[in-house]
């Protein structure tokens, strides 16, 4: 009987430790990697706010871990040591009603711990939240929409969607990006774990946050405040470019939409169907703002806020019925015929 019990215990430990092992393997892999990861772990920071937070986290984890081991240890010891035994007589154990000294001790020690934790935390709050904005900082306005992101670069005259491009920021040439967060409809939250903690986008309540990624690459994240049916597919991609790449990207985005005569049929469909009510393509009659700006659609890797890769088939499927990728997305299926859709896709593919 005793043995069987012990086996159960061992099994339980294995079941519990499996996820922990899985996790630590992944966390360790991420922590050693420099730069973007497929898994957006908070243990793989690549920007000052995220790494300040991680340093603070280790400190808090050490203190709470210490408390866990000592109090948990006392509890485990008491449960094992003071179990009733078969050899016990019927008498009751000595009754102890309390002790003022002991109560005092275990009130004062936690107070001291709280003081230490609070002061360390407050320091990091002020360091991140009240960081002064340097002259060189890039400004981006982020507007949350139901299930997609709008990015405006007010000083550069760029409007794009879903894929944020920022320059890398190095110690020698710091170039942080300051994000001004707005919402067009409901609450959203901007969260790219490797770069910074999240900050909400709330209508009538502008917020600010900043990042200074120090490794190039694509960082993933997603909306972190429930915003409706397709909240799960409101994904985020942040492209951290070298200064040269970034300048090239800016130049390209500043050009008006390319107008290729060979796809005029597609442009005609776009301009005569309701597309123009919701989408903008500079240089054409399309000036809608309800949906993403499509002026440089072909320069993006994904469509529909990361719900699908930007390929001809996916564009076709999207225009035919957006519910195919994102059931509940706020773009209607337009009931176009096959030919119209093909022409549209051909046109959209030229919008570099």
């Amino acid at each position, binding site marked *: 009987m005793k043995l069987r019990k012990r086996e159960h215990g061992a099994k339980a430990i294995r079941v519990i430790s499996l996820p922990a092992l899985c996790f630590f393997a992944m*966390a360790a892999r991420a922590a050693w990697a420099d730069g973007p990861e497929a898994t957006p772990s*908070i243990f793989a920071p690549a920007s000052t706010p*995220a790494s300040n937070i991680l340093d603070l*986290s280790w400190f808090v984890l050490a203190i*709470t871990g210490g408390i866990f081991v000592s109090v948990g240890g006392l509890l485990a010891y008491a449960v094992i040591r*003071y179990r009733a035994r078969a050899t016990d007589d019927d008498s*009751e154990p000595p009754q102890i009603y309390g002790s003022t000294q002991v109560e005092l001790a275990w009130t004062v020690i936690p107070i001291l711990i709280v003081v230490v934790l609070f002061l360390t935390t407050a320091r990091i*709050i002020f360091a991140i939240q009240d960081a002064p904005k340097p002259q060189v900082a890039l400004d981006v306005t982020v507007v949350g929409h139901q299930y997609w992101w709008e990015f405006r670069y007010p000083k550069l005259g760029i409007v794009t969607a879903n894929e944020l491009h920022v320059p890398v920021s190095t110690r020698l040439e710091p170039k942080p990006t300051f994000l001004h967060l707005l919402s067009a409809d409901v609450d959203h939250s901007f969260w790219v774990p490797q770069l910074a903690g999240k900050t*909400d986008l709330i209508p009538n309540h502008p917020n600010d946050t900043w990042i200074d990624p120090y490794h190039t690459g694509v960082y993933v994240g997603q909306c972190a405040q429930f915003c409706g049916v397709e909240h799960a597919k409101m994904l985020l991609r942040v492209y951290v470019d070298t200064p040269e790449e970034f300048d090239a990207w800016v130049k390209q985005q500043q050009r008006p939409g390319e107008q290729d005569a060979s796809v005029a049929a597609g442009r005609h469909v776009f301009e005569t169907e309701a597309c123009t009510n919701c989408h903008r393509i500079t240089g054409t009659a399309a000036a809608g703002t309800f949906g993403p700006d499509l002026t440089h659609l072909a320069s993006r890797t994904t469509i529909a806020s990361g719900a699908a890769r930007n390929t001809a088939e996916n564009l076709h499927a999207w225009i035919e019925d957006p519910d195919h990728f994102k059931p509940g997305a706020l773009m209607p299926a337009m009931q176009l015929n096959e030919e119209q859709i093909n022409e549209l896709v051909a046109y959209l593919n030229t919008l570099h």
Partner: protein
Amino acid sequence: MADQTLPIAGTVDVTPPRRSTAMLLEWLHGWVVTVDHKRLGILYLVYGIFFLLVAGAEAIAIRIQLAWPGMHFLSPELYNEMFTMHGTTMVFLVGMTIIFGFANYLVPLMIGARDMAFPRLNAFSFWMTAFGGLLIYYSFIGGFGLYGMGAAPDVGWWAYAPLTAKAFSPGHATDYWALALIVAGFGTLGTAINVIATTLSMRCRGMTLLRMPLFVWLMLVTSGLTLITITPLTAAQIMLVIDRYLGGHFFDTQAGGSAVVWMHFFWIFGHPEVYVLVMPAFGIASEIIPVFSRKAIFGYPAMVAASVGIAFVSLGVWAHHMFTVGMTSVGNAFFVLSTMLVGIPTGIKIFNWVATIWGGKIRFATPMLFCLGFLFQFLIAGLTGIMLSVAPWNWQLHNSYFVIAHFHYVLVGAIVFNVFAGIYYWYPKVTGRMLSETLGKWHFWLFFIGFHVTFDTMHFVGFLGMPRSIYTYEPDRGWNHLNFIISMGGMIQAIAVLIFAWNLVHSYLKGKKAGNDPWDAWTLEWAVPSPPPVYNFAADPVVHSRRPLWDLKHPEDPDWKYEA
């Protein structure tokens, strides 16, 4: 039974023997019109356990959908309805009803009273709450949404504005949510008033405030907190309905309303609400742990002070749910400090429970197993709470699966564990029969293992960046295995709960006879027969200490000699 009755005045059973010739309808009628606190307590508990099964089924549906990436088990709309209804049900229809069930049944018995202070208000409150529950579930068929189909609320149990505005939530699902909670809220207020009046004015002779069992103390504090917190919730719901139907602009951001004001209203209710749920669970543990350790509770006055302290501080921490909303740095720092301060009285409680066990002779019956599980899990829940209170870290952890793990450690690991403990402990009093210990042990171990498989793992996917409230996730994010493990743990817990449900039914019919005092316990409810007669005590009992039955059983060494 008379021979088993302990010689406390008034425990002699003088009810005429009940004849079971009543017709089914008469029997049913009896339950509907009852104003007896014990019957209402049972109604609350049965109602709560029923909805525990319903909301549990919703949780399983959620976990099937998330077991693999890109699953099509639930549509996005249905998924959102499921997590909204799961949260709303668990908090308002399971948590609140079960704690008030315990309060109704036990408070009068523990303080030597014959009933609650206002028996009719008591019945009214139960039926209001019950009707609120029916109303919100009726939305599944009656909530005519935009497309003419039934639609349950799908805005999250926190229902942030302006998603709840007419523009973003057409149809009536959100109305059902708001109205049902207003209705249920009035029921809750009624019971809170009742518990306060009962504990303050119905105690038997000798039962001073500082001799009340800790469970009664915690129910008193909880009820006070309930009065304070349900009010802003009800106010906010009324404002929401005004916005939706009378053109108000409280939360209508398009007309200059404020989304942030809703958050403040919701969390000034929402944070204390979690204490409203957990304090009665503390009360249950404070009754069971001493009895099964065979020792008096350690530091009773400190326990009372800590409970009042927690309630007080918990009224000033609500905005720790809003660290990402963009408060000033000073505002953030304030709520960091106030939140961390809650940890101090909470720590005191944990230490006192451990000290109670220390030096005892622990009997590992099922109620005690659940309470020990509670102690272990609540320790961890408190520590993850401290992690969340560190605002910068919270910017990462907020709205991720880490938060889900934290509050399920509290809601399940602490509250549900103690509710199970309480049911195993008092079921013999309520029904006169013992629950099966064998099934109980199966229930405990499966539930304990399932709980840890599920909720320990959730912390880790949270660290890896998985947000909450998403109906699916990308397959390349490295979350697949962990999510599968989480879902499997959910299944194990479901099996455990089914064993529990079976145990309840089976033992009711076939269980061992309990007698008055099967656990050799010390509080007044164990002095009366099981089940207690309608009037509880034929004559008012008189007590001299916190453990009247200890004094009777140990006349050579009574408590009143030592109590300060």
